[in-house]
């Protein structure tokens, strides 16, 4: 069988012990690969399109001021003329900045997981953003400049992939409802295949500048074996903005 030519055993004959160990380790990890789309339980459907929690977490005064100033297009603060940092409806820019983590999950587009030795690749249909989760035992990259999607390392705990992400900038929201965060944001995702067709992601948010305690939520995804990740280019949002402006502008007297 052709696949066996690439089995860990063949590599082990020609690679260093360390490399072959990594490959064999990768071969034993749970299989999370596939195209996944959000499929929340009934009690989460009122908020699943904009957040991973239905509650407002306890904020510091700094975060509360940020939250009150937010003009999101979803959630309790939703307004028609949103100035959301991603997909605003009236901003002068189209708003194609990466949405950050975990906000990327609550855009209504699927993502695909690829597993390769030493890495898990998360490929999101939304603007084709990619995250690399390094599972080869390396620590976080030190002194990294703040970034939109953060610096992610992962490890396997039984059937669960635990992703630890830091190094965010503070330009994104945690969700589409306007929950803020600072550069101190630390996100932990615990990803587990509950059954063949169901993926669970438990999210923990730790950001002492913004929230008075660690909090979180979870998202449920469904395997879509017949779906491909399709093109979705954020700049096309200009088409929508033109229409939306007509829908919210005041009619001529």
């Amino acid at each position, binding site marked *: 069988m052709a696949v066996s030519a690439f089995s860990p055993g063949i590599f082990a004959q020609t690679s260093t012990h360390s490399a072959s160990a990594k490959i064999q380790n990768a071969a034993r990890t749970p299989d999370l690969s596939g195209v996944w*789309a*959000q*499929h*929340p339980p009934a009690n989460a*459907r*009122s908020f*699943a*399109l904009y957040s991973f929690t239905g509650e407002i977490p306890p904020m510091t005064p700094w975060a509360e001021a940020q939250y009150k100033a937010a003009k*999101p*297009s*979803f959630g309790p603060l*939703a*307004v*028609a003329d*949103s100035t959301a940092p991603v*997909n605003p*409806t009236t901003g002068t820019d189209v708003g194609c900045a990466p949405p950050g983590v975990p906000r990327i999950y609550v*855009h*209504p*587009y699927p993502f695909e997981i690829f597993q390769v030795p030493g890495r898990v690749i998360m490929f999101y*249909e939304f603007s084709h953003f990619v995250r690399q989760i390094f599972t080869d035992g390396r620590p976080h990259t030190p002194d990294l400049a703040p970034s939109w999607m953060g610096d992610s390392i992962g490890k396997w705990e039984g059937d669960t992939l635990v992703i630890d992400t830091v190094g965010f900038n503070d330009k994104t929201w945690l969700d589409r409802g306007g929950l803020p965060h600072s550069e101190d944001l630390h996100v932990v995702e615990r990803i587990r295949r509950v059954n063949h067709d169901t993926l669970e992601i438990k999210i923990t948010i730790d950001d002492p500048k913004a929230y008075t305690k660690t909090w979180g939520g979870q998202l449920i995804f*469904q395997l879509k074996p017949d*779906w491909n990740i*399709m*093109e*979705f*280019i*954020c700049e*096309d*949002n200009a*088409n*929508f903005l033109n*229409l*939306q402006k*007509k*829908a*919210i*502008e*005041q*009619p001529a007297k």
Partner: protein
Amino acid sequence: MKIRHSAILAAAVGLLILVGPIFAHHGTAAYETTQETTVKGTVTEFQFINPHTLIFLDVKNDKGDVEHWQVDAQSPNQLTRDGWNKNSLKPGDHIAVTGFRAKNHSNILRFVKVIWPNGQEIKAAPVF
């Protein structure tokens, strides 16, 4: 509510729990989502583009004047996965479209469903 045009059939349907899941990409705060509006007309253009597909309709009002309507529908990715393609609507098709009208009463609808003359309906599937 006074019905302004004979071609517009407005029906209050109460709270529509599918509003969120159907219109997932951009918010709906600009639209009257507690009341559906239906317009009947002729398709002039169907743009199968991101982030939302657009249906352009010519609708005759009760004075016989033609009004131009735009219907803001789901993304092509979402519609493709529900069996639509770029030829699902063609110029000249006579259809009715149900949706939520812009609160500013411009001739813009957020899409709910297409109804063909034979009564067949095509709804966009909710995201979940």
